[in-house]
């Protein structure tokens, strides 16, 4: 049924400000997330991501501005907001000293399920998240990945229309991370609106429809992953030479084309202007120039844009123009 209700954005934030003492953590933030969208709030530690999500989840009071979740004001109707949201990640934890099954059953009961439904649902979720064998063990014996999956399961007991995931995979090893990503993807295909925070561009890229980049309390860019990367970060060629002498020669030969120089690893980087054939031509020109001048190449590589690049680019107005040292791969 199409009603005016369904056209409401799931999350609507206008003019949101929050300070801790003299520190302004959120500075006039506007944000809108449509129902069914997955938005990644991407930024470094201390950018204001967690503060933002805590306010949206009714856990923290904003100084000013308006926040509506599913049309309800977080300040005036927190209970109506709470029945629509699930919290996971750094935001809300599970009980270490209970078993996985006891955790999910308890949270189900606290969310107004009947005892029988709470037990049934707990069993379903344990199975869906591959935790059925561990369901009877205390959570403190779980691995990091298992714990995060249980945590995510705990936020999905009543299948809320909106789920907040605060740094869902931080400190997980790559395989545990992929398992969790798969779980999040399934959640998304069921139509759940998701707001996730991360400081990892790859994670945002993997999961989100829309990425909002937040830095020092302000949203400084917003768009699809592809659009942002095209706008802010282009791939780089990395050329590593065997000696510091060769490095000096390479830097002077490449001139303006050299974007960054890392003296420790003797690597010079060149920004790739194009992803297609022109990019390849540009790359070949660099290799040709170096080899015709007799500069030996030890290693050659391509590096995709990282959050670092995105940030440097977006905040470059504030920084003094000087050769930046590339991070070694």
């Amino acid at each position, binding site marked *: 049924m199409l009603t005016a209700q369904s056209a409401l954005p799931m999350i609507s934030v206008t003019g949101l400000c929050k300070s801790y003492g003299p520190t302004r953590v959120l500075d006039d933030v506007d944000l809108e997330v449509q129902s069914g969208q997955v938005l990644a709030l991407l930024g470094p530690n201390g950018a204001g991501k967690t503060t933002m999500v*805590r306010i949206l*989840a*009714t*856990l*923290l*009071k904003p100084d000013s501005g308006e926040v509506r979740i599913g049309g309800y004001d977080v300040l005036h109707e*927190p*209970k109506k907001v*709470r*029945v629509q*949201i699930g*919290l996971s990640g*750094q*935001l*809300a*934890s*599970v*009980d270490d*000293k*209970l*078993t996985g099954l*006891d955790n999910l059953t*308890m*949270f189900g*009961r*606290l*969310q*107004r*399920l*009947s005892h029988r*439904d709470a037990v*049934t*649902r707990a069993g*379903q*979720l344990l199975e*869906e998240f591959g935790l059925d064998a561990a369901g009877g063990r*205390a959570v403190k014996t779980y691995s990091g990945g298992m714990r995060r999956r249980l945590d995510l399961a*705990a936020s*999905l*007991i*009543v*299948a809320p229309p909106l789920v907040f995931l605060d740094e869902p995979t931080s400190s997980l090893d790559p395989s545990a991370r992929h398992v969790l990503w798969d*779980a999040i993807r*399934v*959640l998304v295909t*069921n139509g759940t609106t998701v707001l996730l925070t991360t400081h990892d561009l790859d994670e945002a890229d993997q999961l989100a429809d829309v990425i909002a980049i937040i830095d020092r309390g302000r949203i400084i860019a917003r768009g699809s992953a592809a659009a942002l990367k095209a706008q802010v970060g282009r791939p780089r060629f990395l050329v590593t030479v065997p000696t510091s002498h060769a490095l000096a020669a390479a830097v002077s030969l490449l001139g303006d084309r050299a974007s960054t120089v890392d003296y420790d690893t003797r690597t010079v980087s060149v920004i790739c202007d194009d992803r297609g054939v022109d990019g390849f031509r540009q790359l070949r020109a660099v290799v040709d120039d170096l080899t015709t001048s007799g500069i030996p190449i030890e290693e050659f590589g391509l590096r995709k844009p990282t959050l670092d690049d995105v940030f440097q680019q977006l905040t470059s107005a504030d920084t003094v123009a000087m050769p930046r040292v590339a991070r070694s791969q």
Partner: protein
Amino acid sequence: MITGGTLQPIRRSAAYWVVSDSSELVKRSLRHIRNDPDQLVGVAVQPVVLVLLFRFFLGGAIHIGGGESYINFLMGGIFIETAALTAMTTGTSVAADMTLGIIDRFRSLPMFTSALLIGHVIADLVRSAVGLVVMVLVGLAVGFRPSAGVADWAAAIGITLLVTFALSWVSAVIGLLGRSVEVVQQLGLLLFLPILASSAFVPTSTLAAPLQAFADDQPFTQAIDSVRALMLHQDPGDHTWLALLWWGGIAVVAFSVASWLFQRRSTM
């Protein structure tokens, strides 16, 4: 495949949810005991150590007069000391919940959040009961000879559990004021100080005069003297009523302060 959304919340009165949420959180705290039985060790071991210490090391030097054996005198004091010891767990459990992320999950649920405090307090009563059983058994083994009838026992245990209950709420207040579990643990030891200045281990008449004035009428002494008299089938006089008044009053005040602090810290 992650399913869901087919389960509908049930509709019940607000009062139903207060009871239901509280019982869920009581179950949670009791499961903590089951999954982490270590916490019972402290509750059971310390009273045993105290009984043995006072009975065999210090008891020889303490003469209480009136022809009563020291162990018979001592047990009433150890009952209440155990109550105070057990009550400290609420403070550290509350502090742990407040500093770990779990409080945020509870807060984000449409639940009766004070159930969290109630859960810890009731679990303390269970721990206290376990401590009492262990202590009585050890006492009997080393010469404790109670002459209490069923009604006396019931009254003595009732008073001890009331003291635990009241002190658990005081402990909850400490847990909500302290900024870390460690600080709360240290502050919790303060609950023990008034026991030293009571009739727990020696008759108050042997204390220095200013201390005696305090010790004679303070709530710990009322509870201890009452429990002691009941177990020895003596007339507790006014001690029982005074103990009920004191500890009932402390429970009401501490409960109110704890609930207020909790609401303040758990609403935004």
